[in-house]
């Protein structure tokens, strides 16, 4: 089976060629262009990275390479040649025979993309059996071999489990095995690690890269993360608004990007605020333990000091308890034990007990501005409410202050009547910031405020937050999983893992070795722009394991 098409499989011959591709999507009663005239070509065994912000059309191009358009989309123009076959000219039945067997797909959310009703193994071999490539027994044996090569735990038995019985990172690798089952010529990876934590991401990236190289499979790797694509791709294509911005060999592009737009894509990574040591502390969290209802403690003996007028970044992966910490500080979740003092006074643990003035002084900004703004309230109503509620401003004074705040967040009066639905993601987040600032707070809790935004917008939001801090001396508790954001904005860092504080201190102290073991794992797992980063990291970890074993 492995030698199928072996005559044509040597590296370097042309496999895929897309010319002048146009794709449209149907929404709001008419067709909108998604991809506008993209050319692309791929050789056997080559990995092409497609990178761009949301709406760049990168996933759509990936699907088009399979001759597929999502429901509600259509390919209107162009040609797609796969191994000399015109994908658009053939019948749907013939295209279907290619899919799965010669072109395979790995989706972003493995948890949703596996059928909950069937075992992993049955789903892995389904294409092999359906396309008549091998018997079920042979396919099963091969699948187990693939699981082993992808470093899945218990490769012999994991296939007998159901999708909901294994973890996200394992599912993503099982899906790669499923794609690899027919030994396709081409695999489309559509953001396969975006939903994973960084420490899991490293393992999945390593597995994918290894198996793609071993079988000399060509791949299109779709992602928004430049550092990830740098590890995986031989060549990178930058997309924006459905058009190609530029295309180059990975090393070449990283060293010398030709276009301004490409440079801005990693601008945030260059942003690095020099840290300022604390002078005094605004908020002291003392031995907090908290749980949601049951007996599982989400926070255990957490103690943190928040410096006045500075930014403290709380870093951790999903399940580390960092968002729970925010709920405890805001009073949404009264802790089981421990206390918090705020500006020298004990902070009551429930919302009800806190005075209006205390509520005013602690504000919160959320990850998803879409959910944080009432879709039925205009910008004016949103920003004016804290002014009326806390400060009792009315009439002209209120209007004046609303306008000042709008200018402060680099927007203007023309937005007053807009509803959130009429704003972009970045504008919505600015409105949320204005709403928080309107209360004249001492402390703002920022819960992953930039994670849902595109890179360029992230940078603008971070700069805005830093400027507001300089102007008003407000303190931030900045909750994030993204180390680049931490570098950009933090003065101090708290690292959390499974509800406990692993390490805390000034930014440079925490970010420079020696680290606590978990911090080390976390920091080393964050992809860097260097195309050799993953190779070097794996090498280092291997050496360390060997060293530890000896």
């Amino acid at each position, binding site marked *: 089976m492995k030698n199928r098409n072996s005559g044509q499989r040597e590296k370097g011959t042309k496999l895929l060629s897309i010319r002048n591709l146009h794709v449209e999507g149907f929404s*709001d009663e008419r067709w909108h262009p998604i991809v506008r005239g993209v050319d692309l070509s791929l050789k056997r065994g080559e990995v092409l990275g497609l990178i761009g912000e949301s709406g760049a059309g990168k996933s759509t191009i990936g699907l088009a390479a399979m001759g597929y358009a999502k429901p509600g989309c259509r390919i209107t123009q162009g040609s797609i040649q796969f191994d000399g076959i015109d994908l658009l000219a053939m019948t749907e039945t013939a295209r279907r025979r290619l899919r799965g067997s010669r072109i395979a797909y790995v989706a972003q959310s493995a948890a949703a993309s596996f059928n909950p009703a069937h075992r992993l193994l049955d789903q892995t071999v389904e294409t092999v059996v359906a396309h008549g490539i091998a018997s079920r027994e042979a396919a099963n044996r091969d699948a187990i071999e693939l699981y082993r090569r992808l470093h899945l735990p218990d490769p012999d038995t994991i296939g007998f489990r159901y999708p909901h019985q294994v973890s996200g990172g394992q599912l993503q690798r099982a899906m790669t095995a499923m794609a690899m089952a027919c030994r396709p010529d081409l695999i489309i990876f559509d953001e396969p690690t975006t939903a994973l934590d960084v420490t899991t991401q490293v393992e999945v990236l390593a597995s994918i890269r290894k198996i793609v190289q071993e079988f000399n499979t060509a791949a299109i790797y779709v992602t928004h993360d430049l550092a990830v694509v740098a590890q995986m791709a031989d060549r990178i294509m930058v997309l924006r608004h459905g058009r190609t911005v530029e295309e180059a060999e990975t090393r070449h592009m990283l060293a010398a990007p030709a276009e301004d737009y490409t440079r801005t894509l990693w601008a945030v990574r260059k942003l690095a605020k020099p840290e300022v040591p604390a002078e005094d502390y605004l908020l002291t969290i003392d031995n907090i333990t908290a749980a949601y209802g049951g007996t599982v403690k989400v926070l255990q003996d957490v103690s943190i000091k928040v410096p006045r007028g500075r930014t403290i970044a709380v870093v951790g992966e999903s399940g580390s308890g960092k968002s729970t910490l925010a709920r405890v500080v805001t009073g949404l979740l009264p802790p089981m034990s421990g206390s918090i003092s705020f500006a020298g006074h004990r902070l009551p643990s429930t*919302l009800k007990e806190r005075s209006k003035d205390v509520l005013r002084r602690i504000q919160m900004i959320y990850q*998803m501005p879409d959910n944080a703004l*009432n879709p039925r309230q205009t910008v004016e109503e949103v920003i004016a409410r804290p002014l009326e*509620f806390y400060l009792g401003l009315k009439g002209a004074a209120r*209007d*004046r202050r609303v306008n000042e705040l709008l200018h402060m967040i680099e927007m203007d*009066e023309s937005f007053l009547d807009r509803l959130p639905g009429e704003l972009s993601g970045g504008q919505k987040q600015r409105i949320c910031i204005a709403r928080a600032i309107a209360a004249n707070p001492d402390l703002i809790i920022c819960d992953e405020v930039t994670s849902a935004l595109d890179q360029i917008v992230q940078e603008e939001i971070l700069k805005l937050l830093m400027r507001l801090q300089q102007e008003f001396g407000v303190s931030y508790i900045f909750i994030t999983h993204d180390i680049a954001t931490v570098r950009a904005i933090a003065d101090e860092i708290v690292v959390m893992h499974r509800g406990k504080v692993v390490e805390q201190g000034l930014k440079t102290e925490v970010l420079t070795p020696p680290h606590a073991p978990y911090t080390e794992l976390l920091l080393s797992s964050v992809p860097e722009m260097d195309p050799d980063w993953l190779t070097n990291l794996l090498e280092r970890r291997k050496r360390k394991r060997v060293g530890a074993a000896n």
Partner: protein
Amino acid sequence: MTSTEHVVAVPRQRRTRASRVKTALKKAPFSAWFGIVVILGYVFVALLAPWIAPYGETQVFTEAFAPWSQEFIVGTDQLGRDVLTRLIYGARNTIGIAFATTLLSFAVGVTLGLLAAMYRGWLDQILSRAVDVLMSIPSLIFALMLLSIFGSSVTSLILIIALLDSTRVFRLARAVGLNVAVMEYVEAAQLRGEGPRWILTKEILPNVLPPLIAEFGLRFCFVFLTIAALSFLGVGIQPPTADWGSMVRENATLITYGDITPLLPAGAIALLTVSVNFVVDWFLHATSGLRDEK
């Protein structure tokens, strides 16, 4: 501060609710327009019944089951009353009672549903379990049972149907309310220190209104059909009050002679419910379309 004066001078291009409705109406399909026109027609007839009807509601003539003629356009009924007159008054009685019932059912269902969604906890548990039990008896059967106890007066009819129907309204209001109550803007309002009234009326209600309005249309149809069915069965609106359900029953024998008179009140019921359904279908489509745009 010159900037503020400048601000005040800037004309606000507020897109009012009215103008939004207007553009939405322009895009409405034929079925929706048909529905709107028919509903307005019914409302018109119901409101102006005494002026439009050729005779009095209970005025009896000598000939029972008179055929269609100049004098009695669609004939007379089993007691010799003009059928057209009865149809016109029927619009007033049947629609009026159904509307009042739906209003009452919504007042109860929406209030309790949103409160349950907002506070959750024991209040929600008690209300939800009670509704589960009430809904485990088919509503028509439940209505029949209650009517056998309390008798068929208009008041008991309205109260019984409204109570039974409010369970469904409660379920929907609670479900949509719950979807909104977990949104972060509601949490943000709590964190700001807003009271329950502000949160209910300013944060939650505006966001649950579209599905509730659509549901009002559907519930009205359901209530209307239930009352018509009960009247048809002879246990709903009682004679001599004119209403469409009992008119069908009273004139049913005519069918056997190939006379379509009893189909007229039945058709009048069907036309109204079809129209409301068409409008609701379009409304749901239009408002969900707005959400998709983002």
